[in-house]
């Protein structure tokens, strides 16, 4: 009896929080859904009418749409592979006891504290700038033509910046996983005649599988919505070369003032994100039992 009472009491107590969260989520979603069926342009807000599926059709047939989907995919996968592989590497390096370990670890983690627009601006003006960036200096020192990163490799440049920001997160999670690896297991493998590479493949990697899963899941959620880095560097260009889905929606809403079209794009993005989430959870969720 007592348990049943506690249960219903518990349900009652958490209700306000859940209801608040629900409203927080449902209201914007419902409004977006509603707008996506309207002809609603901020340049002419008085002339608002029922559009049925026109906004969706318009957004879907926009030549930038498929390019943006592709860019989103490349961006997410590119950043994921750099951060996971790089994160494993750095985690393994700073896991070893070295002189000045504390400082090294803080330095490794610090990019995470820099907010995205600031990080992107630093990269744009101080590192990748074709005339006074560090990369340009390096190229000149080697006697090569400096690269105009944002003009020649816009998407790659953004991947680089975003990966730099997320590398500390991946490193941190993977480092904690690495630290929980049982030393005796490694020694046992050593006695069993497994060289370092085999120990990495058969022990370290499987041990980190769960942490890698967490890194991929969390990062994917955030990487689908990368926006600030694009805004302050390439502004989606040249052409649509670095426009992802989020940025395309932003363009529809804030540059074309087309609220209806942007809302339709938003709904499409939500649907796509959920599809990705379902597949991701299915594929990697097995590691999270």
């Amino acid at each position, binding site marked *: 009896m007592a348990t049943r009472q506690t249960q219903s009491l518990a349900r009652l107590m958490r209700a306000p929080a859940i209801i608040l969260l629900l409203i927080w989520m449902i209201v914007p979603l419902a409004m977006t859904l509603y707008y996506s069926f309207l002809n609603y342009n901020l340049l002419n807000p008085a002339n608002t009418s029922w559009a049925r599926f026109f906004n969706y059709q318009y957004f879907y047939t926009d030549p930038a749409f498929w390019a943006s989907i592709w860019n989103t995919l490349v961006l997410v996968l590119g950043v994921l592979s750099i951060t996971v592989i790089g994160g494993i590497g750095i985690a393994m390096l700073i896991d070893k006891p070295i002189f000045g370990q504390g400082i090294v670890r803080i330095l490794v983690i610090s990019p995470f504290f820099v907010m995205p627009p600031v990080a992107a601006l630093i990269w744009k003006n101080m590192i990748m700038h074709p005339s006074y960036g560090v990369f340009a200096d390096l190229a000149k020192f080697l006697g090569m033509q400096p690269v105009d990163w944002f003009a020649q490799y816009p998407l790659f440049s953004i991947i680089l910046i975003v990966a730099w920001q997320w590398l500390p997160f991946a490193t941190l999670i993977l480092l904690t996983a690495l630290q929980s690896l049982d030393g005796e297991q490694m020694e*046992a*493998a050593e*006695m*069993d*005649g*497994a060289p370092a590479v085999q120990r990495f493949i*058969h022990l370290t990697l499987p041990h980190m599988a769960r942490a890698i899963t967490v890194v991929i899941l969390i990062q994917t959620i955030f990487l689908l919505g990368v926006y600030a880095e694009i805004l302050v560097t390439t502004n989606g260009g040249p052409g649509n070369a670095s426009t992802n889905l989020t940025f395309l929606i932003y363009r529809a809403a804030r540059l074309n003032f087309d609220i209806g079209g942007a809302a339709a794009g938003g709904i499409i993005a939500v649907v796509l994100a959920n599809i990705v989430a379902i597949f991701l959870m299915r594929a990697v969720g097995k590691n999270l039992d």
Partner: protein
Amino acid sequence: MGSITLKNVRKAFGEVEVIPGVDLEINDGEFVVFVGPSGCGKSTLLRLIAGLEDVTGGQIQIDGKDVTDAGPAKRGLAMVFQSYALYPHMSVRKNIAFPLKMAKMSEAEQEKRVSHAAKILNLDSYLDRKPGQLSGGQRQRVAIGRAIVREPSAFLFDEPLSNLDAALRVNMRVEISELHNNLKTTMIYVTHDQVEAMTMADKIVVLRAGNVEQVGSPMELYAKPRNRFVGGFIGSPNMNFLEGAAAAAHGAHAIGVRPEHWQLSTTEGAFPGKVGVAEHLGSDTFLHIQLNDGTPIIARAEGEFPVHHGDNIWLTPQDGRVYKFDKQGLAL
């Protein structure tokens, strides 16, 4: 073949010298037990032999070959760890086959050896389980199986039974002894439990603070401890020590009498005392006695000995069962 020779092996961690210099000869097929209190360096010595630690000085030979600088894999030894150190994401079968896979053995040969080991260790029905689904004793057997399949020249056990409950420990003790009789391979076994040492060993190495105190068969150590430490460490319950007038009467600084070597009487004897706690086990009675001069004594009487808390009792050491030690603790 698996004879191992240590020549003046030393180990220091930074400034701290853990093993100041050990000479030891382990013959092929012997069951050698390193025993000693916590922190005496017995596990370190085992790890030096395994190659998991580098020696600071001295030489280690296996079958007459110098392996001091060889890696662990090159020494042809197998080790069973205290935590078993099974690979948690691999099935039992893959765990046992892992060293064979690393040695690039053919699948058929791997399968043959794994099933052979599984049969010896009664693991047949668990081969497809993960270590997490096994009990402590089964995990222990898997760890031993992983060691057996390599057919090493010697097995190293690092306190393998300390994580098991008392009943299982007795079983596994017998199983490991049985295994040694079947395989006839050299085994080095580290424990702090002198009962394990006494029951399993061909040869016991008693260590204290990194020094070898005595090497010998269990009965040798029991009958002729070289010093007071070995006398006190081997045997359960521990040897009783008496100093002062009682020892002087035997011409020694201290004398030791084992609990089982007292003659007990409720009327007369050499040392009067009072019974404290009496543990009646049926087969034996253990008496915690306080002598009149305050020395605590443990005595064992065979069968039932009807005394109670507070009773007067007299103790007399049996003839020829008194161990004499000088001021430095060496046996006289």
